[in-house]
């Protein structure tokens, strides 16, 4: 009984939090799921914590549903042939170890970030790069993201592996989302949309629970382009102004049935029950690390004074 309640709240919470995070409204209050704890009743079967903790009546820890968006790299690669629970567990332990050293903040495609990397070739041995995150991917220790900026009228993109020990600091200067999951079209857009000053300072978040969506529509340069953008259903791009035959051919080539293909979606994602288990496992450690950093930040300026 309790299990069903837990699942419902997680899934409902998933949907709720998705809409909330996409809404730019400030009136919504923060949704924080407190860990659901039941009193420790005398249980006949003392099942393992991970397996059926809720059924046996022991403490049930459920991570907030936002974790699915904040820490997507904790979910493993969904390809069934390559999955192994022990290996994923060991990898998660290593990831948490690395996160205890540096803060890898929450970010999305469209956020403007600054990364400091140890570089033997640069004058002060550290190289700092500021850019907009155009794509992120990988799972586990192979998680990566690409930052793009235009430096001296030359577009530059750098792929950073999030868990590489050469990275000294990752800062999010502006946390926001765009209308698309991948901003690769910025390569064919006017350079002003990819230019961000290196001296940019971190902007304070107005509302901690909601990540604003930037509804900007980007103007593309005239053709030729690197990809056929008219075939990709881009939301964040202005009207492409192409002759009608391009749109006709895009319609012929399109696969509109894919959005109804349940098995395709199933194979591309990790089921909700597994996601719960994974985030429940890492949730407490991540919260502790977050808390420690907040305390350090508060103590930092006060200790100086």
């Amino acid at each position, binding site marked *: 009984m309790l299990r069903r309640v837990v699942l419902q709240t997680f899934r409902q919470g998933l949907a709720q939090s998705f809409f909330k995070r996409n809404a730019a409204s400030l009136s919504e209050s923060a949704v924080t799921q407190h860990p659901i704890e039941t009193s420790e009743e005398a249980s006949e079967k003392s099942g393992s914590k991970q397996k059926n903790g809720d059924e046996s009546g022991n403490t049930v820890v459920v991570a907030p549903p936002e974790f699915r968006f904040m820490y997507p790299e904790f979910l493993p690669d969904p390809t069934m042939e390559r999955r192994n629970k022990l*290996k994923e567990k060991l990898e998660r332990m290593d990831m948490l*170890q*690395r996160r205890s*050293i540096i803060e890898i903040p929450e970010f999305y495609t469209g956020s403007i970030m600054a990364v400091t990397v140890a570089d033997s070739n640069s004058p002060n041995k550290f190289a700092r790069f500021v850019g907009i995150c155009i794509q992120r991917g990988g799972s*586990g220790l192979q998680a990566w993201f690409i930052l793009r900026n235009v430096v001296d009228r030359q577009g530059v993109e750098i792929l950073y592996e999030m868990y590489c020990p050469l990275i000294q600091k990752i800062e999010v200067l502006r946390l926001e989302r765009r209308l698309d999951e991948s901003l690769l079209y910025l390569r064919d857009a006017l350079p002003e949309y990819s230019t961000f000053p290196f001296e940019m300072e971190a902007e304070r978040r107005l509302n901690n629970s909601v990540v604003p969506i930037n509804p900007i529509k980007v103007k593309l340069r005239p053709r030729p382009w690197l990809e056929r953008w008219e075939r990709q259903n881009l939301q964040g791009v202005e009207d492409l102004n192409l002759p009608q035959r391009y749109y006709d051919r895009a319609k012929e080539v399109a696969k509109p049935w894919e959005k109804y293909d349940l098995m395709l979606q199933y194979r591309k994602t990790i089921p909700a029950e597994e996601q719960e288990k994974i985030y429940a496992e890492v949730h407490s450690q991540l919260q502790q690390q977050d808390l420690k950093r907040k305390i350090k930040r508060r103590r930092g300026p006060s200790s100086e004074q």
Partner: protein
Amino acid sequence: MSTLQSLNGSPFLLGFLFNHEQVRNMSRVKRRNTHPGYWLPLKNVQKKDDKISADNLRFVREVIQDKYKNKSPLKGSELQIEKTEWDPKTKRSGVIARNIGRQQMWDKAGNKIVCTVLHVLDNHVIRYIPPEEYVKTSRGAIHFKNKTPLGCLVVGAEATNPEKFTRQYCNLFSEVGLLPKKTLSRFIITPNAALPPCTPITAGHFLVGQAVDVYGKTIDHGFQGVVKRWGFKGGPASHGATKFHRRGGTIGTGRDKARVWPGTKMPGHMGSERRYNRGLMIMRINMKYNVIYVKGTVPGATNSMVRIFDTLLPLRKLKEAPPHPTYFPPEEGTQKEEDIWDSSLHVYGSPSISV
């Protein structure tokens, strides 16, 4: 004509005209065995629908539990192992492991190292066959035809429910008092590395920094065409090519010995072959979960079984004594180190690298 005949046997000209010799050897070797030997006991239960009542089924399970109840794996202190010395010519036992995937790590200079994660399953020694006995078996006679005979250690891994196996197969283990294992393997060892039955072998059997050979069966690609299997170039994709894009083309000449030579490269079964990846360095060992991280890749798909043993490569062989004959955890329960890393690796909990 006479010049051609005289030059017929010359390897240089043969290679120059057509390379039949090499092709024949490569493709005529017996590459895979899809069935076990007829002399081995039947392993899996053939008839699965046994029409017995639920009560009787429960009774059968109780009997199995009683039979294996007191047979818990022995600790190092309870086993009677003779103290033998390790020397560079000793051949130790190997280990059966499962390839559970790949994980990347970084070294202290910031370079990425891709390691294969091998999970050492619950290995137990089933039997030791001394050299005099092993030479008399058919396999041993072939192996040690003109050499000094060595002993053979039979190791099993992954204990499973006895209901899945036949009685003959379970008897192999019940003499020793172990739950039947899913996988069995033989390791050729020198007599000074012999181990008594029921000895557990764990990941601590190896040292961090040593080189190992990993034996496995490659990924099974099934029936494959000539382009993927042998790397042929096929034909042009366009320019009017009629039904000739991924085919082999000619399979022989018309003149000399006008027939298809045995060993000609053609489509067929690809993969599922015995291979050794030699000299792989062990970068990290996790004693708690019995996991070894090996630098490089290993034959076979993820979640397949492999065998690991000390390397035969002369320049990478062990110079210092490893845990001989095998590793036993210290008596006082907990060990000193749970996770042992190679000195060149960057440990995840340590501060970021500053070059």
